[in-house]
């Protein structure tokens, strides 16, 4: 594995800024769902770090569940935009307040599709919370209720987000200079 310092372009969001923003989001969500219960749905694998840290800041009663998705076809959620569920929720979400937690939204195809699928199960409410929003890449409209940071259209890694499965453990979010990155 290449040292990330060899191909880093810049640190987009540093550890402290992430920590503060995640705490703010936690407080806002706790406020919005005051007096209610929440099911936090973590989308594996990128959403893991964010979900774990976000839930530490929730003061309302909540439970946690996970989904694992992949795409039909080749490439990163390419082709039809249909997603395959590798691991479905253990929880029946009918009548529950559900918050989908994702690391990053770009084209919005995956997120839009998952929201659509989950809506068929008739949750009481369904909202999305993403740490990073790459708005410029949006191809389909998708309503994201909670956004950590708007980021430019760069190739990012760290804080749960990988490059070829590595670098998820980094405490900050950085952009990669792909010319310098060796697979």
């Amino acid at each position, binding site marked *: 594995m290449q040292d990330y310092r060899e191909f880093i372009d810049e640190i987009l969001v540093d550890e402290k800024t992430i920590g503060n923003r995640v705490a703010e989001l936690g407080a806002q969500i706790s406020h919005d769902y005051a007096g209610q219960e929440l099911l936090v749905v973590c989308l594996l694998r990128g959403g893991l770090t964010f979900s774990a840290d976000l839930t530490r800041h929730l003061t309302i009663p909540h439970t*946690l569940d996970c989904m694992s998705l992949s795409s039909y076809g080749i490439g990163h959620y390419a082709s039809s935009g249909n997603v395959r569920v590798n691991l479905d929720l253990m929880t029946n979400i009918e009548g529950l307040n559900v918050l989908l937690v994702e690391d990053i939204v770009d084209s919005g195809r995956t997120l839009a599709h998952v929201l659509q699928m989950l809506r068929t199960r008739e949750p009481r409410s369904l909202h999305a919370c993403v740490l990073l929003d790459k708005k410029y890449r949006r191809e389909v409209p998708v309503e994201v209720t909670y956004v950590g940071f708007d980021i430019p259209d760069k190739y990012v890694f760290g804080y749960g987000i990988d490059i070829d499965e590595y670098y998820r453990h980094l405490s900050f979010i950085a952009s990669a200079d792909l010319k310098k990155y060796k697979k």
Partner: protein
Amino acid sequence: MQDYQDILSEILIDEQTLQTRIRELGEEINRDYQGKDLLLICILRGGIVFMVDLMRHITVPHQIDFMAVSSYGAGVRQTGGSVRLSLDLKTDIRNKDVLLVEDIVDSGNTIAYVLEFLHTRQPRSLKVCTLLDKEERREASVPINYRGFNIPNKFVFGYGLDLDEYYRNLPFIAVVDLSKYHPPA
């Protein structure tokens, strides 16, 4: 949901002690896997919080993957029984250095089976890292290579461990007072 303070018997391991120990475990793992490439496997869902924090201290190259398991049939798994894989690994572990990361080892039945199952795929090495070890309850033999804490045979929650799915987000490990706890309907 009851406030955790209403059902708390004692705080077994506080936040600072947890985080210090997790850092130590990370450093130990870094030394042991120097020059290697590691795959961390998290068994959902209890192990999530521990794995996220442990990973932050691991500086050797590593990837993560997940497994979800459940038991066949109703009730508690019996010694030697099989476990149903609801989510298998994405990664082929042949010739990989694999470290299974668990929140707690109790009877050890599930993890013993998972280890046996993973061995059939011929990883280069396969080790176990658990945050909590309730050794008193052990029924199956499980080799534990990295252990956060030995704990007594008490009903614990917090830091990824749930009580009826709640309280996973507490930053400490606590013991529940079952005489005060009312499970949700």
